[in-house]
């Protein structure tokens, strides 16, 4: 008999029975829930109560050693010296040509201990970057289980569970605490643009973590969410994602498909004040050059149909395409993230979007006027408060 192909995360014995739809999808070799019951309700819970999303399949790398900070500064485009112990930050990293490989979060536990979290395998790239340095890089994905608790009641849940540090944990803060006898790391991070935390435990503690959180939530409950609801929230928040807004530069054959951080609106995350890092030279040339040809923008469209895979026109000229599109329950609008040629990327620019949909089985097209807006569609004060 052939073994099941996809691995189950340590939360599976809890989440499996909760998944009423039995809809699962692949994420780095793991089965991850697409939806548990109804994505609308799951999304509503993100914005109104507290939700749990199993982020165990995310790649987690432990970085330790005397040269750990030096390694990280060779790798990322931001300056790790601006991230104190007990803090995390978001950063992209690039190849030598200044094309983005991935973006992720870096946790700084101490001067010489870090964790990098991302969606794709990066070990060989990290090892190549660490060439000659006294640093240990371990893939600890299987040793660490993690839950993303997102929603306005997430802080309340952690406090009820007894993680008192959550009370004054600042945005992108990190704390190593205990849940009774269980060591937990809590970071104030997330992918939803809402108040939220990520809780990291040893894999063998995953089930106990869930049980304790559930007990703390009591009748208020925790809503497990799947990828569809999360995607709605992340598009509203304007978070980019590998394989959606940009490809991994290492595996992209067509040069024109590779994206630079400048195109993705990440110029703020490139720190030229620090010494050399992967791609610095190329990025400096990009910065001094005529500017990116494409830009990541937000689009607002009339109607309820999401402009999935839409080509964007200015007159007869195709000037861009959407990378992700949803109907936003919060804004009550059809919105999309899109890559658009620079001259058409200014806020307020009106483009024609070819929106395809099916009426019964027949493929239909409607041309909608899409208005360019900032790609961070929402800015909830509670996210950072």
């Amino acid at each position: 008999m052939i073994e099941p192909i996809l691995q189950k995360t340590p939360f599976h014995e809890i989440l499996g029975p909760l998944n009423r739809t039995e809809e699962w999808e692949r994420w780095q070799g793991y089965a991850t829930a697409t939806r548990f019951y109804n994505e609308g309700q799951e999304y509503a819970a993100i914005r109104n109560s507290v939700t749990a999303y199993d982020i165990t399949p995310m790649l987690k790398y432990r970085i330790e050693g005397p040269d750990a900070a030096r390694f990280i500064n060779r790798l990322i485009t931001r300056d790790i010296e601006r991230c104190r112990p007990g803090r995390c930050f978001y950063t992209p990293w690039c190849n030598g040509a200044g094309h983005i490989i991935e973006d992720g979060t870096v946790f700084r536990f101490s001067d010489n201990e870090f964790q990098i979290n991302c969606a794709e395998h990066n070990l060989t790239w990290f090892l190549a970057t660490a060439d000659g340095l006294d640093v240990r890089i371990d893939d600890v994905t299987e040793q660490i289980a993690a839950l993303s608790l997102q929603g306005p009641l997430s802080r309340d849940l952690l406090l009820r569970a007894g993680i008192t540090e959550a009370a004054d944990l600042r945005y992108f803060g990190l704390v190593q605490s205990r849940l009774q006898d269980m060591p937990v790391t809590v970071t104030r991070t997330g992918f939803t643009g809402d108040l939220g935390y990520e809780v990291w435990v040893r894999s063998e503690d995953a089930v106990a973590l869930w049980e304790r959180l559930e007990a703390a939530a009591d009748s208020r409950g925790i809503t497990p969410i799947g990828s569809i609801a999360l995607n709605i929230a992340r598009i509203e928040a304007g978070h980019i994602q590998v394989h959606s807004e940009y490809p991994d530069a290492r595996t992209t054959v067509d040069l024109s498909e590779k994206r630079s951080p400048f195109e993705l609106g990440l110029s703020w995350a490139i720190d030229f004040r620090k010494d050399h890092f992967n791609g610095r030279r190329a990025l400096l040339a990009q910065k001094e050059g005529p500017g990116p040809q494409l830009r990541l923008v937000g689009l607002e469209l009339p109607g309820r149909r999401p402009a999935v895979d839409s080509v964007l026109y200015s007159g007869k000229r195709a000037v861009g395409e959407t990378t992700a599109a949803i109907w936003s329950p919060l804004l009550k609008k059809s919105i999309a993230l899109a890559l658009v040629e620079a001259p058409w990327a200014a806020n307020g620019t009106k483009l024609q979007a070819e929106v395809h949909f099916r009426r019964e089985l027949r493929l239909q097209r409607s041309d909608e006027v899409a208005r360019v807006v900032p790609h961070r569609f929402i800015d909830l004060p509670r996210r950072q408060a």
Partner: protein
Amino acid sequence: MNNTKTDAVLIGGGHNGLVAATRMARSGMRVVVLEANEQAGGAARGYEIHPGFHLPALAHMLPAFDRRAVRELKLGRYGLKPGINEATTVSLLPDGGNLTLHPDADKTAADLRAHSAGDAEAWPAFQRQLRAQADALRPLLASEVPRLDFSDRRNLFALGRLGWSIRRRGRQQMRDLLQVVTMSVADLLEDRFETDAIMGAVALDAVLGTDHGPRSPHTVFTLLHRLAGQLAPGTRPASATGDTRRQPVEALLEAARAAGVEIRTGAAVKSIRVEAGATRGVELADGSTIDSPVVVSNADPVTTCTELVDADHLDADFRREVRAIRTKGTTGKVGFALDRLPDLPQPASGGPLRWVIAPSIGYVERAFDHVKYGEAVPEPALEITIPSLDDPDCAPSGQHVMSVNVAYAPYSESFDADEMGKTVTAMIERHAPGFAETILAREAWGPREIEARFGMRGGHWHHGDIALDQFFMVRPVPGFAQYRAPIEGLYLCGAGTHPGGGVTGTNGINAARAVLRDRRNGRRAA
């Protein structure tokens, strides 16, 4: 001299380093050449094997020197003679006989008739074809490599010109070239000939100095690469004799001094100093430093980019590509000082002679099998020259020096180079009885000795194997074929850059041009 300042530092005083240094100095730059050895000249210089006996260190067959280098450095004024384009090759056969390959194809064909009428008929056409294909390849070797950048007009023009130089030869020839460059030389030869001796001799030319056997793919390319250098226009036919040859290194040293280049020998460089992405100079092994905004490295790309430059200053993917350059040397070298001329067959040639022991494709391939697995080769293929025949100054009157390239010798710690010297002596003794008794001195180097002596990584003549995947736009690594390392002010000028090895000076002149162009523009081109 604890801390000096200059406009440019050259690491390595090999021929390309001297060419680049002289070219820059002639444009008004103050240039310091740092040579780790006690003598500049690298693998192209001579060395004294025995009192009064001088021998070319490695390069005993000299292709034509780059015409731009000759012109811009006025090398003719310093005694550089035009290269001699072709030697007469005598293939020594196991039965004691021999087969002579003359520069003139018809003459060779006449000799071949004794072996095979078919081969005699095929040889001139084969030679014409090889020459045509080498001609088609030559524009790639003679020029600087354009970048794959279609937005820059000048670059686009260079790409177009290059494409046209091949395309204008006609559809058929272009098709032939594209087909043959990927073939193994064994397949090419066996398709046309039946005489082992002729095939073995050509096969050796295709693989000598590379990490390939005659049955390895794209060894037709390595053959054409060699021919394109040797048969360059401007070389004089072999029959025009009368001059003694002068080692190009001597002319280069003289030209360099005349241009005001400072040459420091015994000056090993420890590291290249980089600050904020820009070259600041070098630190020497003795602890002293030289400040310079430009550093041109004649060392191989792997040594330059992984040992001399700290990894902090380079992108991880660039370093990984550099590390992946194949630099395994496979060629040994044996030098002899001889009391008298060995009794080797000497056909009347009117030009330089060389002898080869490569009696068949299988012989060369079997020799390669050993080196492939890091073993010493019991019966290697040899290329033998007697430099004192062309340049009597090499040895006292009536006495001689002999230089032998050995295909193959492994790059391995357990390899005993002296044992190889004995093997080679015995092999030559078989064809020239009495040879062993005339030896006054013998020196044998395997790739490790060559590496130590000349600082060439892996002991590879070409600082990186010659192969289609290490040629042109991808030499030394993709995206960096324009002599510029990805650090402001750092340049490469050695054989590891386009167009590869061979004492032509092309790499050096191209690198100097890149430096001068950047200097003129006030900043470097991308």
